[in-house]
């Protein structure tokens, strides 16, 4: 990672200096107590193992891209299944503090009258206040909040510069000299072209405010990328995905960019293939790796311990950037819940519950005697 000394460094759009030499991007999952330490470091790769039906991993990808739009970063979105434009249209809408705007418009258009059910009789001074106080929006902490039930305004979305790569529309290129199969090769080439052309690797002069490129790569390793790692025990291109990730991380380290890659690990780590090393290799080739396990459709859905959550979040790897070891969290029992305005990740106290049960059984035994 190339970082100049403090004096020469220009401010880079919407990033924060956490430790000397590290720039981090805001991450929208504000309540995560562990892992990214409040953000994703520029030049790193975040690997997300998809949940079974790709609902929450897709949501994380959309949060990542939406944060990029709101911060004014450039985006690169690659997908093989749904067209990138379709994914962009599903981005959640940011929550902005718009109370002042609402007040003025309401005062003019809606005169209070007795027939109007919204008119308050006694507390009429609070009539024009918003019904729900959005305390979330008033905070100016690093990062933003999003409302999942609404999609982002097209004007806001189109203001962001987005490069897309849709595997179905790419013409296959013969790649005899490359160790990668055609789709991965084409994707890597496309990313490299964008980084060079837009100057994220420092090739253009530093006259304008430098920006960061956010890359979102959806469902790498699935069959639609031409990869057979999911369906065969001895795939023909067994090193395709690992080679791609290795090359991608090289590109990220030498440019101002961050990537999030989702992988359908439940299809790769199938029972009949036994314990495969490929998933371990994929994790080692990323900086941060998390896995989402949704409760939907599994027997854990009926477990009372998990009734308040939508799934478990497993931290497979934490980043070790410019240091030998990383901060190890106290506990790795994390569960997530997708609420309308927040994606919360919390510790769940499995030890506490099991020890409480142990105490109860002991006392019951004593009383009987």
């Amino acid at each position: 990672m190339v970082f100049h000394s403090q004096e020469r460094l220009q401010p880079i759009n919407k990033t924060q200096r956490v430790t000397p030499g590290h720039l981090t991007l805001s991450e929208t999952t504000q309540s995560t107590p562990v892992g990214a330490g409040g953000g994703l470091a520029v030049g790193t790769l975040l690997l997300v193992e998809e949940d079974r039906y790709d609902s929450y991993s897709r949501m994380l990808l959309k949060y990542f891209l939406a944060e990029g739009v709101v911060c004014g970063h450039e985006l690169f979105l690659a997908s093989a299944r749904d067209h990138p434009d379709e994914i962009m249209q599903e981005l959640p809408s940011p929550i902005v503090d718009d109370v002042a705007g609402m007040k003025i418009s309401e005062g003019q258009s809606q005169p209070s009258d007795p027939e109007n059910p919204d008119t308050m009789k006694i507390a009429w001074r609070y009539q024009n206040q918003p019904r729900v106080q959005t305390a979330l929006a008033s905070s100016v902490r690093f990062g933003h909040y999003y409302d999942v039930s609404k999609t982002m305004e097209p004007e806001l979305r189109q203001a962001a510069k987005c490069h897309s790569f849709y595997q179905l529309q790419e013409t296959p290129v013969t790649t005899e000299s490359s160790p990668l199969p055609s789709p991965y090769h084409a994707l890597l080439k496309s990313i490299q072209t964008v980084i060079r052309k837009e100057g994220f690797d420092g090739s253009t002069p530093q006259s304008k405010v430098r920006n960061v490129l956010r890359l979102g790569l959806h469902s790498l390793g699935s069959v639609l990328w031409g990869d057979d790692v999911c369906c065969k025990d001895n795939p023909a291109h067994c090193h395709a995905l690992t080679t791609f990730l290795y090359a991608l991380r090289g590109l990220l380290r030498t440019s101002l960019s961050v990537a999030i890659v989702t992988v359908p690990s439940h299809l790769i780590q199938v029972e009949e293939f036994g314990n495969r090393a490929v998933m371990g290799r994929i994790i080692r080739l990323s900086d941060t790796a998390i896995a989402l396990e949704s409760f939907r459709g599994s027997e854990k859905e009926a477990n009372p311990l998990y009734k308040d959550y939508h799934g478990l979040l497993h931290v497979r790897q934490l980043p070790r950037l410019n240091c030998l070891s990383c901060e190890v969290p106290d506990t790795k029992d994390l569960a997530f819940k997708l609420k309308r305005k927040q994606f919360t990740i919390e510790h769940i106290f499995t030890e506490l519950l099991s020890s409480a049960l142990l105490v109860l059984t002991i006392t019951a035994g004593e009383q009987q005697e």
Partner: protein
Amino acid sequence: MCCRERKLEDSYSFKVTSFQVINALNPSKPFYSGECVHYMCRCFQILGEDVHVLGFESPETQVCAGLDSSCVQKLHFHEGFPDPLGWKCTSSFTVDQFTSQHITQLIKDTQYAKASVLVVDSLSLVLRHHDPVVICQRLQELRKGGVIKTVIGLLHSDLHQQGVVGIVGHLASTVISVAPANNERHGVAKTTRRTKSGKVMQEEEYFSVSEDATLSVQAKLRQPGHVQKEQDVSEADPTSNLTFNLRLSEEERKAKEKVALPFVFSQEKKSALLRPTPGTGRIMYEPDANDDFDEEDPDDDLDV
């Protein structure tokens, strides 16, 4: 018509773009799969859709048996059954012709331009003779091509590796797994449907298909040990059974509403006060790290 067909119409409103029937039965009882295909064709015809069937496993007579003659026009059967691999060159459609270009051309040739339904009976045969990666890519091309609205594929999951079944299931937006129930006459169907927004809906039902392709859905399967909660009875009225009276009679209510409240201003004064003035005292509060409120422990003094 039975209730199941109404359900199919409902599923149409979800814009199913790729739909699958997975047969998880043992091979000695293949009749469920054939009857499912037969039933599916009948349903789509009732809905007025153009149906193209690539039949590799069942002959046309079996699939089209019992269908109304008026609907037969909209059913286009591409016979692959007697010779699916084209050894004797007697079939009109072979497994090798399962490409997006060929199928799209086939559909465009046979009818006026309208997005239609493609039923593949079965995908297992196609997957056994071609690379699963290539077949999945072709299915994706068909789905996004625009000529075909819905693709329905039948897959015998006991004939493939778990990996292959997994990737085909992952590609589909709806998966129905069919298996025999304890009772021989019935089967159990587990449906998993994914919407674009990420919602997943799952259902499990008993069904049986009769001779004339009528599908009847018997009952929803209940999980053993899963207690069905009774509907909450209407809440007890808290103002009853008290020693004092908390209710209002009609006259009392009217008198209450007539009482003049203090600080009730005229409409003009209210609007004048409500008009936003610049620089009203607004409190800007930014919670810092110490203000991490926990609703269950507001005083932060529980020794957890």
